[in-house]
């Protein structure tokens, strides 16, 4: 039996803040509140990656939230869609090029819907979620991987090394230099 048409009727969302200013996060709450009432589309804010279909990410991905982002993404069972909520989640926005951010989540996980806006208004969020539902319906149950894998941090001489924790996999990834886009050398080159 084909159940895929029921996917769009029961999207449960998982929200993760990867370093946003929490303007968008508040707007998500507002979208759940009586005026906008996301629940009328069957949306449930489940908060549990294993029971979610839509991954709603805000924020430009700070260094410390990288692994968490990838881990949450990997824990979600397919089919799943990812929504990048807010300008800084899409491209880095105002934080682009700051030393501790990764300029948008699509360096780490594949994104299906980009919602711009600083901050994205509840109307935009609803629009984006509805758009994501159409994509969700078409998805297969094939395994979707993050662009870079998460591995355990290694501990040597009491120092924890987390630099390998978000490694690139396969081809089409980034070169090691590009993996640290905000390294001081590179920024100096840009400024010259």
């Amino acid at each position, binding site marked *: 039996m084909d159940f895929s048409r029921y996917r769009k009727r029961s999207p449960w969302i998982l929200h993760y803040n990867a370093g946003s200013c929490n303007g968008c996060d508040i707007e998500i709450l507002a979208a759940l509140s009586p005026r906008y009432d996301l629940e009328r589309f069957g949306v449930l804010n489940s908060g549990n990656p294993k029971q979610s279909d839509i991954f709603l990410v805000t924020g430009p991905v700070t260094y410390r939230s990288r692994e968490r982002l990838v881990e949450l993404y990997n824990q979600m069972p397919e089919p799943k869609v990812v929504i990048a909520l807010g300008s800084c989640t899409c491209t880095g926005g105002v934080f682009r090029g700051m030393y501790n951010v990764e300029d948008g989540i699509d360096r780490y996980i594949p994104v299906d819907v980009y919602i711009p806006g600083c901050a994205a208004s509840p109307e935009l969020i609803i629009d984006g979620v509805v758009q994501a539902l159409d994509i969700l319906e078409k998805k297969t149950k094939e395994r979707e991987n993050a662009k870079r894998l998460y591995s355990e941090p290694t501990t040597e001489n009491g*120092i*924890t090394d987390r630099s390998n924790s978000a490694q690139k996999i396969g081809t089409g990834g980034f070169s090691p230099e590009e993996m640290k886009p905000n390294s001081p050398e590179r920024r100096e080159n840009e400024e010259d």
Partner: protein
Amino acid sequence: MKKIETTLESVVSDLTAFYDYKVWEFLTLNGVAIDEGTTEIQWIFSRYGAIDDVVIYYAPVKNSETVPSVVDLIPSAIISQREIVDMFGITVENSEKGLYLDEDSLSAPLATCRI
């Protein structure tokens, strides 16, 4: 805003003499990069209930020196001390690295003065 100069050796005794926890609110610990290798560390206080009565104790610190901890006197200073360690790359007694920065982050981002 009143600025009082102090030194690393005398800062703890100065602050012990100055700080009465029911009169002064400890605002924060601040650092300003003066030039390559030197940072001005500031301990900022304000008086409860008075209009703009801010007192700043400051001391220039070479990057090789260790800033004494004032946590025994002011428990809430622990978090700003850890921030200073991260942002300026100097060492503060009993304060470990890693409040904000990860291993592959830019180390001591505010240490160099661009001017």
